[in-house]
């Protein structure tokens, strides 16, 4: 099957593989230890999946703000996003 039209690059392939691995990991985690919705630092009751969604959406906005507002290297935004996502999953 010719996938040239999809114009894959190693970076985007890595990005989607990471997302897929996160989703598979979350599914296995859910099967092994079903999640209970709770209220943490966020002002709403969330499940693990909700917190992941909020974390990923927030990370996308962190990266966009970084690209649009600063000239600093992008890896700093990635580090901030990973910290944000981890904190949200743990205490959100």
């Amino acid at each position, binding site marked *: 099957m010719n996938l*040239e*039209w*999809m*114009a*894959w*690059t190693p*970076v*985007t392939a890595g*990005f*989607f593989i990471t997302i897929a691995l996160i989703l598979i990991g979350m599914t296995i985690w859910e099967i092994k230890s079903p999640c209970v919705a709770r209220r943490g630092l966020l002002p*709403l009751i969330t499940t693990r999946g909700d917190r992941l*969604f*909020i974390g990923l*959406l927030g990370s*996308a*906005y962190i*990266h*966009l703000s970084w*690209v*649009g507002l600063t000239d600093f290297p*992008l890896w700093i935004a990635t580090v901030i996003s990973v910290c944000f996502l981890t904190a949200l999953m743990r205490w959100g």
Partner: protein
Amino acid sequence: MSKWENNRAWFFILPVFVIVAFSAIIPLMTVVNYSVQDIFGPGQRFFVGLEWFREVLLDTRLHDALWRQLTFSGLVLLIEMPLGVAIALTMPKKGWASSLCLVILALPLLIPWNVIGTIWIIFTRPDIGLMGSLINSAGISFDHTANAFDAWTTLMLMEVWHWTPLVVLLAFAGLRAIPEAYYQAAKIDGASPWAIFRYIQLPKMRGVLTIALLLRFMDSFLIYAEPFVLTGGGPGNATTFLSIYLVKIAVGQFDLGPAAAFSLIYFLIILLFCWLFYQALQAVEGGEKS
């Protein structure tokens, strides 16, 4: 045994998964791939990182289009929501008159979106259009192709005419679901029409009105066909909304990289609003249950 049967049910969602993969996930992946490359043609592409995102985020025309879009959606909601509720309140509640009103109101919803634009082009033409010629014969110069205010007025009128019926239908359904006992209790208490609306009808319509708000915001935020047919984004850029500007970049200029980056930013904005509205809806439903 029952566990196996439950798990087997997952296979039944496979067709949906395949359809979604081909209609949404694979195109989305392709857009992400395009957004980080400069594409000249088949096999001729170069990785540029997030350069297109930076270009698009710093593009003042995109900022203008975003503000225009938000203004348009805000105005549409400010007009359509109260108007829709007001019409639903004044409609006949029962009998043939009620059915007739519902059928007439639903008519604009059945017309294809590009046809709506064409209807309003003809309707507002200064020479042969009923509205355009009437306004001009009253001594007021009206031309939606030359004047930005006229173009906005026409667009707003068209949008309100097209979509207020949806709010009416939802509000009417909400009103019909209120048990008669509430009105009888209000009558015994001697409640005024305003008190009945404020303390009975409005709280009971909260759920359907939130759904109406969601639908109308999302539809108006994604609007393309009607303004494209009616004004083409003009005069100048006066009615160039996000979708029209995106199509100009993608199809008009054939800048696939910036268009892909723009699409992803547009997608993220919509995703954020969808999530916020979904949370609002959940909060409303939670409030109704408690």
